[in-house]
């Protein structure tokens, strides 16, 4: 039983990332009708915002310590962080420790800006082009962004630890009535799941309970009629592109301590997130979230030794296998709407 609960927690954790990326993809597809293959790259850029903030907080000047030597026997060059110098060592150490959560303050406006520039500068020219053209240009864009990150940060994963307060594990077992330490789960992964739930709830509340959100939903249902009412729906859709980019960015920042960021991390998630979107139903926000968590949990269960002993390699193909079964039985996905991508 404890093994099953552990895999459910694992699945929720993975599913959180899939759901957040798929939510952004669906927002863009639902509003702008664009199949955005660069969305994984936006997730990756978000993760590298966390890396950048960490590096900025670690920027140092050199002091020579004549009393110690380096590996070549020369006087030791000691790196002294500027933030320690400016804010005192206690505040400086706290800022370095909390660099990942503090990155959220940077990533939201930054990713909004990136989303705005991408949409106005490139994506808008492909609104009336076939989906194949959109896929090609956004996939190309993802490669370009990946190569820029590689040129700036190198090809290797960069460790981005969570605040020390979130190291260690939460004894989930005790909460569920098990013996102490029977089910311990990493604290930061619990934080990630809670963070994702809050972001998803905020996006849904924004669309459901604000006038802006109501107009956007109306535009998603019938763009032309909303336009005829004198509402500039394009501006709102551009904002939604920025919002989707910000959601992807936040997902990336918070995921950085779980999986060390590298230039290809977006591609790893992109393919799976597209499967999630298709399984959830093209254009369906609740479908994307539901499918994200469902496929995350299934993937975790497929990694169990007992399951792999029955069907070797199942953990590598489970998501695609389930996608095939769902699409054969429900061609529009779990919650797909009639008419979306069916012309």
């Amino acid at each position, binding site marked *: 039983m404890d093994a099953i609960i552990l895999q459910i927690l694992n699945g929720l954790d993975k599913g959180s990332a899939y759901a957040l990326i798929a939510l952004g993809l669906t927002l863009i597809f639902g509003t702008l009708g664009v199949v955005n293959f660069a969305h994984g790259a936006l997730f990756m850029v978000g993760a590298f915002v966390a890396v950048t903030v960490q590096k900025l907080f670690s920027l140092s000047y050199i002091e020579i310590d004549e009393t110690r030597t380096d590996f*070549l026997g020369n006087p030791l060059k000691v790196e002294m962080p500027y933030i320690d110098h400016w804010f005192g060592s206690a505040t400086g150490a706290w800022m370095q420790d909390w660099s990942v959560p503090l990155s959220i303050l940077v990533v939201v406006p930054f990713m909004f800006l990136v989303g705005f520039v991408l949409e106005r500068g490139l994506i808008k020219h492909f609104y009336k082009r076939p989906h194949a053209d959109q896929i090609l240009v956004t996939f190309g864009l993802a490669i370009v962004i990946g190569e820029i990150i590689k040129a700036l940060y190198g090809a290797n994963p960069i460790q981005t630890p969570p605040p020390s307060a979130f190291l260690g594990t939460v004894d989930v077992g005790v909460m569920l009535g098990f013996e102490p330490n029977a089910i311990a789960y990493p604290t930061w992964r619990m934080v990630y799941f809670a963070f994702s739930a809050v972001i998803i709830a905020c996006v849904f509340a924004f669309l459901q309970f604000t006038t802006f959100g109501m107009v956007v939903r109306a535009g998603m249902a019938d763009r032309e009629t909303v336009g005829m009412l004198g509402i500039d729906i394009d501006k709102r859709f551009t904002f939604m592109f920025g919002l989707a980019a910000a959601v992807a960015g936040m997902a990336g920042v918070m995921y950085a301590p779980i999986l060390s960021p590298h230039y290809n991390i977006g591609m790893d998630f992109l393919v799976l997130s597209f499967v999630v979107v298709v399984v959830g139903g093209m254009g369906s926000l609740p479908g994307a979230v539901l499918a994200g968590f469902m496929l995350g949990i299934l993937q975790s269960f497929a990694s169990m030794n007992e399951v792999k002993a029955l069907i070797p390699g199942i953990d590598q193909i489970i998501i695609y296998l389930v996608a095939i079964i769902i699409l054969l039985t429900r061609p529009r996905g779990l919650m797909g709407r009639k008419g979306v991508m069916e012309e």
Partner: protein
Amino acid sequence: MSKSNFTRRGVMKTGAVTSAGLMLPTYLRAENHTGFTNAPQGDTVKFGFNVPQTGPYADEGLDELRAQELAVEHLNGIGDGGMLNTFSSKVLDGTGVLGKKVEFVTGDTQTKSDVARASAQSMIQKDGCIMITGGSSSGVAIAVQGLCQEAGVIFMAGLTHSNDTTGKDRKRNGFRHFFNAYMSAAALTPVLEKVYGTDRRAYHLTADYTWGWSQQESMAASTEAIGWETVQNVLTPVGAGDFSSYIAPVLNSGADILVLNHYGGDMVNSLTQAIQFGLKDKQVNGKNFEIIVPLYSELMAAGAGSNIQGVYGSMNWNWQLQDAGTAAFTKSFGEKYGFPPSGAAHSCYVQTLLYADAVTRAGSFNPCAVVEALEDFDFDGMGNGPTSYRGADHQCFKDVLVMKGTEAPTSAYDTLEIVEVTPRAQVEYDSEHPMFAGGDLGACNPGA
């Protein structure tokens, strides 16, 4: 009625032109003149450095490349000469190899066998390389070694640790300086016995390719021999990134040891995630839960940060050794790049020098002459103490290092400490040992 234009003179002319045309490509290939592939023409000779510059083993690959470039500088008489000053063989004098200046081309294997083969093929066919060196994955090394055997060039393996490289997949044209999984287990297990005792239950997470299989087999065999029980072995895909689904079952498996048969970025991720799951703080069977990383590198240790502290593993070489060869190489590398070299860098540097030395001693770039010069070659001054290239399987034999993650680091480079220098005699084995059996070096292929 048709009229035939055939004449005896016409047939002879056409035949002569066709024959000449067919023979021309063969005539233009250098080996036709010299008897081996890519015989150097002019006053230069070209080496091919085929390393992973991207992918899960990119850190190691890029460090290998730095060391290979340094070796070329030293061979061409640039810089302080590094290990040329301490090498027991004194035929290299900084004037290139057999009077030819050394040039090189580089390739990115991406840690993928097919990409690595394509890259090596291009180096041999397009760039005219006489020797290929590199690799940071046994899958890649075995694939490229096979290609070099077919093409008739020498392969000086870089970082490859699977028993198979000089076991069932050994080739006459291929040589490995790096140690192997069997040697790691043979060096590490007595130390583990001393520190953790004989009553332990081990859970293995294993990279799903030749190196992982062979590392797991070696560790399981040697630890079971001292009384440990292997609870489970789970194969994980290379580059999996998130290992949480594989680590979660360890928690309640009854194991009190986790053996991570992972390397490079995979090891950094799996170790970090194992620590995040609280494994090192756990008590199982009345004992502290422990993690073991059989194959270490400084780059992995740096990537894993404080997670590596107190974790045991093994290495082929470490810059903290006190011999003259190590000091010379560390100084050259450190002054050029600003940080100490990794074990992978050391092996590739040494391999490049050993090849140049063998060519010089043989007096020829002919691969078969180089093979003869390297087989059963004894040398010293390269950082590992007295070392031999065994002729029977082309495996180098030398001391092995047992390492531990430094508990209280004093600098960015103080990540690992040497626990023991295991003498060579303790890690030696018969070339037909069951873990290495089934291979055949075959005949040397000069490529002509």
